[in-house]
């Protein structure tokens, strides 16, 4: 029976049927939606909302606009080639006077200081020394006398750039880029260009931890999947044990173990293997060890579930077909664990990217990861714009990774892992 004949023959009854079907489906959908609604609302408030807020803050730039509104308006038409004209100077003087009265000079000073080191001094000294709004036509001269910086073009382009309402300043800074006085994007000065190497360090540590987790976790997962149930359950308890203790406790335990007067060094010394205590902590080694320990279960569990699904008959079949154990493992077993390896690695890698407490406690100054700086800018220096921009770049990198993984897994399903 074709659709056409159906439509032709049952045209009179089809419409009500469709409508009834739709109605029935709709009721079911509404019920399903009602069931997940609490979770959706929860996620919206605790997850989607904060992420959107963070992304917004990474481009939001309204402080200067609020404190120096006339100046920003006056600079809007300025081409940035020469010093701005008298109107802009007058507007600035008037804005500064108003800002001093309302006590908001520091807000603009802080923002402008991010872009141009020393701007805080320029603005506060100007505010302090500007006794009254200058006579019309003398603003340029007055301000220039109070602080010579007002005769610099860069001072004014900084204000114009910070005029908002949105800016790429923080995102550029997060990538070690900045705009020069002519508005072109250039590399940031070396003393400020720390973020690329910071991202690189974060990725290298995450990658090392992922690789360590895979190397250590694979045999454990294999044992879990192949041991008889009684012993594998016991082993599983050991694997899950770390989940039952707090992250902080586990990290501190590593400090106790690895410090120069710690258990490991004392034992090695007692055994006569070393004379001087090894430096095992507050360096990259300590960070990798502690993070690997914490993240290992996230690798083992996906590996275990993919291995559990592999029937032992496959290895027997491979052997009976003439494959030596290593060949059978590489060509039959390993490819079937790839989804587990991918899922576990992605999980561990992404979790490691955002790690904060462990590197902060067991790492040295050269081992702090991106999240340490995000926390620093959020809580210490209150540079939320830069913190958000770093977060946004990290989020983007993570999403890209997840996307690549998704493509790989999809490709695996369509074309197969192995080609002849």
């Amino acid at each position, binding site marked *: 029976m074709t659709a056409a004949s159906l439509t032709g023959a049952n045209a009179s009854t089809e419409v009500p049927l469709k409508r009834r079907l739709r109605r029935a489906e709709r009721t079911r959908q509404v019920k399903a939606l009602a069931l997940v609604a609490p979770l959706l609302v929860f996620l919206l408030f605790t997850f989607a909302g904060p992420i959107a807020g963070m992304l917004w803050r990474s481009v939001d730039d309204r402080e200067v606009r609020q404190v120096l509104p006339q100046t920003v308006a006056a600079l809007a038409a300025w081409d940035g080639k020469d010093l701005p004209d008298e109107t802009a100077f007058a507007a600035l003087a008037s804005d500064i006077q108003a800002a001093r009265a309302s006590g908001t000079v520091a807000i603009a000073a802080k923002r402008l200081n991010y872009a141009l080191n020393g701007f805080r001094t320029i603005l506060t000294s100007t505010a302090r020394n500007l006794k009254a709004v200058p006579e019309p036509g003398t603003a340029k001269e007055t301000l220039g006398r109070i602080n010579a910086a007002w005769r610099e073009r860069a001072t004014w382009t900084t204000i114009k750039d910070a005029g908002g309402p949105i800016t790429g300043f923080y995102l550029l800074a997060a990538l070690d880029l900045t705009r020069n006085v002519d508005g072109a994007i250039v590399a940031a000065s070396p003393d400020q260009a720390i973020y690329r190497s910071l991202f690189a360090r974060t990725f290298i540590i995450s990658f090392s931890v992922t690789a360590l987790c895979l190397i250590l976790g694979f045999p454990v997962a294999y044992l879990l999947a192949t041991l008889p149930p009684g012993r594998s359950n016991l082993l599983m308890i050991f694997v899950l044990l770390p989940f039952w203790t707090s992250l902080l406790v586990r990290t501190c335990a590593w400090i106790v173990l690895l410090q120069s007067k710690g258990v490991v060094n004392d034992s090695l010394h007692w055994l006569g293997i070393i004379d001087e205590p090894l430096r095992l902590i507050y360096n990259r080694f300590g960070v990798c060890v502690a993070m690997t320990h914490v993240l290992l279960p996230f690798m083992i569990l996906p590996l275990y579930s993919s291995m559990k699904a592999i029937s032992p008959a496959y290895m027997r079949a491979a052997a009976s077909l003439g494959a030596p154990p290593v060949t059978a493992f590489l060509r039959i077993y390993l*490819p079937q664990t790839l989804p587990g390896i991918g899922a576990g690695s992605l999980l561990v890698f992404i979790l490691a990217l955002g790690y904060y407490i462990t590197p902060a406690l067991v790492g040295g100054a050269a081992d702090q990861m991106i999240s340490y700086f995000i926390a620093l800018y959020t809580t210490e220096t209150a540079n939320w714009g830069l913190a958000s921009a770093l977060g946004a770049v990290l989020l983007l990198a993570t999403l890209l990774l997840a996307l690549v993984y998704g493509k790989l897994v999809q490709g695996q399903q369509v074309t197969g892992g192995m080609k002849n």
Partner: protein
Amino acid sequence: MEAGMVTPAPALVRFSGIQKSYDGEHLVVKNLDLDIRKGEFVTLLGPSGSGKTTTLMMLAGFEVPTHGEIYLADRPIKNMPPHKRDIGMVFQNYALFPHLTIAENIAFPLSVRKMSRAEAQERVKSALRMIKMEALAHRRPGQLSGGQQQRVALARALVFNPQLVLMDEPLGALDKRLREQMQLEIKQLHERMGITVVYVTHDQSEALTMSDRIAVFNDGVVQQIDRPDALYEHPVNSFVAHFIGENNVLAGTVEAVDKDFCRVVLAGGGTVTARAVNIAGAGASTSLSVRPERIVIVPDGSSSDGPNRLPAKVQNAIYLGDHALAVLDVAGNGEFMVKLQPGAHDSLRHGESVFVTFRPEDCLALDPV
């Protein structure tokens, strides 16, 4: 081939005094001696737990015998790893590699043998042609039906021309019609390619359909190894008689033995003459075995006076299409079955008294159950 050997088909596989225990207390296989000749189709038949699968696994190399030696083409293989034995195996659940296509699955044994790509491709192609699945070469096992997967598993086990092919209940997961079709296909393949097959099943009709010889396993011991017809006609004990085909059992005591025949007094009353197959002697208890199709029902008062004539009471008459079955009460056995022509059951009434007769040579006196 050694000059001294004169047998036309020497043993390809020889089990010599094989014992296997998993726990050190019980023997799963007790002292197995079994020769399998080249080109033979031998089935290991038995109920689950009888040791047949363990025997197959020892031959494949996945289990190591606790005692004894296995010879393959006169070489001891007890300690040879499975991948060096050159034995193709078809598994119960096919064990096709799910991440490889059909063609890649079949090519696997060739590629691990480092066969040239051109030759391997040619072999794979002809194997696919053999199972009539050329069109599905690039599908994955998950996209095939059970019967198709079974064919691929078969092709994969045969493509590298192994000296021996093992099959571990390969048709267990298929429905009845497909199973019967595959039985014939496997049988034809065996005959056409002249391969040696060791087949494990618990399905006696499957064993009878395909095998040259059947080894009936029970409790870790081979009860009888014989051709299918010999097993059916000349079972050596009650287990084999009961396991192969339908069978009526009557308990009794041997009264007298006269060469190949004996007089047996039934526990439920009456005396019959039976072939003395497996009895201890006069005075010993015995189980008589009579096949349902070898029995004739005669109406009450019939004048024929054969040697084996027992009174019976009709319990039930069942129509089964190609034949009918009468269930009678004979000498205390309330499930005594007689196979009839369809339609012949119409005249039987429940509770009716009749007589059953059977020839002495169709009644076997076996060990008591």
